[in-house]
């Protein structure tokens, strides 16, 4: 087995209680590398794609990469994958923290969990051994309480857990790792909940091999120096991911009032990284082996939103529970973040759904009777806190919002649809495509729905990185323009998607020279890859997930931006600008090798060795587009 891998996957059938292992060979890893790419291939080859996402048939696949646990910066990551209960298409969410390295130390590259346990349970893994343990004691507890209980029962273990939202099948339920780290997107906490699986506790003492230990030490030294001298890494260390809000307000990146307002400098002054740092920061916190330490530990010492010391909000959360809902009080964001962490809910989808509710309330499309007396006025944080509990428990009005904004809007009638801002059912992250047209294209074609992390477009288009040594790109791009963006997105996807298969954090990827990352990958695995080899793997990964989505009904009709985003703002840096979606998509489809229906062309898949996928897509290609069942979440 090459360095960086154990070659072993653990399979757990929660119905029969059978636990077994299987081996993946080097040849497989040379094609798919790791993380969500490996998971996608396993999902495609081994499971019914059209399974009910909230049934036992939907496999939960947890997959690390070859760099996970290697001690190289930013490589604590792992991916959680399944068919998404929120979008109905391929779902994946990457997470940093501690679980991935510990799973590797326990002897596994990944896990596949199938079936639904007859009783609430958790899975315990320790150095190769695994057992299913009854979990009635922790069922109903929030993620922090669950983690504490498992820590007390299993000394030094690392915990992956869901909260009440996952148990109650909230469609944007998250999965928490050791309290401060989350696999948030696409609702995979509900997949765990549907399996009656409350948590996974893992402990390991092994050490993954490296192909070239001396070479690895050199790569580590280079990485440490590059991070030390990186202003990008420095700003993340000083202010966390929220460091970008002040500049984002200037460039038009920050969504305001459910994407209807172009700028509000009072919001960024109140909610941005400097405010978080100066008012509430207790200390910085790091994922395993990461010198950047972008995570925040915060405390609100006094006032109505007092919170104990704990994980602080990311930039995205400062928007969804701040700028998006016109809340100028950062303490309120911190409180909402803590509640979402404890209940186990993705702060992007949850906050965006709350923002939609506030807009509909203002417009009279939701009444006080609909909200059961909750005053959903913009910025009313006490109402938000009450609502979060109702969502997590699926109580009344909360049960409607627990379906996610797209389903909830559909139930509220056509007039509500515009307020749900999503692509393929996934609420957009907090970067406005009217200010950065490349991001708009990336949202349209991302394989998990509207997403800013399945690619490196944010880094390349906004100028945080310049990688001409990896692919052809200009020195600088103008955000609110569509020219030259299709090629930028295409290449940034093929390289950026590798973050999820190598298992390296994008923040670290943006702080290092790509040569250093490539060297680290090669000295760990011994693969001897060049950038072009990596880019082929990235392309294969993208096509594989696209093929899965095509088989689940995705076509070119679903590659679209919502009406709200296609409506120009009247103020701010993006005023008057909307992405030229027709140009962007036609150029992109040509580069990517998609046909008019948005399905990968045969020759492209053949080049990538995806012949089995080619065969399965033949029936989809042959079908008349008009006869095809349309995806539920068209824009």
């Amino acid at each position, binding site marked *: 087995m090459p360095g960086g891998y154990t070659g072993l996957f653990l399979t757990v059938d929660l119905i029969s209680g059978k636990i077994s292992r299987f081996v993946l060979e080097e040849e497989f890893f040379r094609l798919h590398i790791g993380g969500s790419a490996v998971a996608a291939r396993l999902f495609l080859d081994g499971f019914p794609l059209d399974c009910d996402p909230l049934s036992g048939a939907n496999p939960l696949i947890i997959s690390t990469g070859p760099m996970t646990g290697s001690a190289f910066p930013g490589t604590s990551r792992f991916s959680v994958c399944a068919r998404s209960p929120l979008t109905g298409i391929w779902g994946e969410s990457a997470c940093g923290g501690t679980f991935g390295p510990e799973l590797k130390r326990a002897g596994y590259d990944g896990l596949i969990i199938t079936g639904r346990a007859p009783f609430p349970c958790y899975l315990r893994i320790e150095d190769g051994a695994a057992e299913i343990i009854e979990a009635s004691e922790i069922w109903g507890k929030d993620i922090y309480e669950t983690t504490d209980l498992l820590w007390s029962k299993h000394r030094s273990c690392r915990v992956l857990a869901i909260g009440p939202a996952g148990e109650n099948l909230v469609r944007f339920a998250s999965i928490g790792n050791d309290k401060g780290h989350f696999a948030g997107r696409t609702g995979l906490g509900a997949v765990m909940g549907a399996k009656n699986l409350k948590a996974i506790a893992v402990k390991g003492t092994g050490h993954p091999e490296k192909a070239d230990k001396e070479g690895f030490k050199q790569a580590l030294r280079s990485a440490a120096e590059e991070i030390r*001298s*990186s*202003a*990008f890494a*420095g*700003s993340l260390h*000083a*202010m966390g991911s929220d*460091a970008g809000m*002040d*500049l984002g307000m*200037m460039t038009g990146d920050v969504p305001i009032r459910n994407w209807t307002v172009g700028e509000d*400098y009072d919001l960024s*002054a109140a909610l*941005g*990284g*400097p405010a978080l*740092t*100066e008012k509430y920061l207790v200390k910085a916190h790091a994922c395993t082996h990461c010198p950047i330490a972008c995570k925040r530990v915060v405390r609100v010492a006094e006032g109505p939103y007092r919170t104990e010391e704990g994980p602080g909000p990311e930039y995205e959360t400062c928007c969804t529970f701040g700028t998006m809902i016109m809340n100028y009080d950062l303490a309120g964001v911190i409180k909402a973040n803590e509640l979402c962490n404890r209940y186990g809910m993705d702060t992007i989808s949850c906050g965006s759904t709350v923002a939609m509710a506030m807009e509909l309330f203002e417009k009279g499309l939701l009444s006080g009777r609909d909200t059961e007396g909750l005053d959903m006025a913009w910025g009313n944080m006490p109402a938000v806190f009450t609502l979060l509990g109702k969502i997590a428990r699926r109580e009344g009005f909360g049960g409607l919002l627990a379906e996610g904004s797209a389903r909830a809007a559909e139930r509220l009638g056509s007039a509500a649809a515009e307020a749900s801002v999503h692509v393929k059912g996934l609420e957009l992250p907090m970067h406005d495509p009217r200010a950065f047209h490349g991001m708009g294209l990336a949202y349209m074609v991302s394989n998990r729905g509207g997403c800013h992390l399945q690619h490196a477009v944010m880094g390349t288009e*906004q*100028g*945080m*990185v*310049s990688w001409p040594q990896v692919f052809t790109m200009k*020195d*600088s791009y103008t955000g609110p323009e569509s020219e030259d963006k299709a090629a930028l997105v295409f290449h940034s996807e093929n390289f950026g998607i590798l973050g999820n298969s190598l298992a390296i954090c994008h923040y670290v990827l943006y702080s290092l020279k790509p040569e250093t990352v490539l060297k680290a990958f090669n000295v760990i695995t011994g693969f001897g890859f060049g950038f072009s080899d990596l880019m082929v793997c990235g392309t294969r990964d993208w096509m594989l997930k696209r093929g899965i989505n095509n088989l689940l009904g995705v076509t070119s009709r679903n590659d679209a931006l919502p009406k709200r985003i296609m409506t120009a703002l009247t103020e701010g840096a993006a005023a008057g600008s909307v992405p030229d979606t027709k140009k962007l998509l036609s150029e992109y489809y040509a580069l990517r090798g998609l046909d008019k229906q948005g399905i990968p062309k045969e020759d492209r898949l053949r080049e990538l060795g995806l012949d089995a996928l080619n065969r399965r897509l033949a029936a989809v290609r042959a079908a008349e587009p008009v006869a095809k069942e349309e995806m539920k979440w068209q824009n």
Partner: protein
Amino acid sequence: MAKLKAFTQEWMNAFRRRIADSKEYREIAGNWEGSVSIIINPDPARGVPETVYLFTDYWHGDVKDFLVCDKAKAESADFIMSGDYIRWKQIARKEIEATKALMQGKLKLKGNLVYVVRNVKTVNKVVDLLGEVDTLFPDD
């Protein structure tokens, strides 16, 4: 009007006037206090034989000293920005944004990063005004 030679005191005076005359700058920079030095790495092939040290000082919307200075004076500033000559030229010509250059490691910054981010509008306005000085660069 003739172009001013870059990195001369005359050029610094013109830069200072641009800022001092900007009503918009005064409004934006009300919270800024502190000096900023610019260090330009030598590039003999492009007509910059030695390191250039520039010192600028700002106080709540007003501008104070703008000097071509020595190393010791430059290093006494609250914030120190350094980088290759070609990068500074690109910034002055608005071919690249200063914040992007910083993030990409093309410029280095010493000083309180939180303060700079808090006042990023001020920083960008100063760079914007720098671009308005009609400049003759050494390799033009």
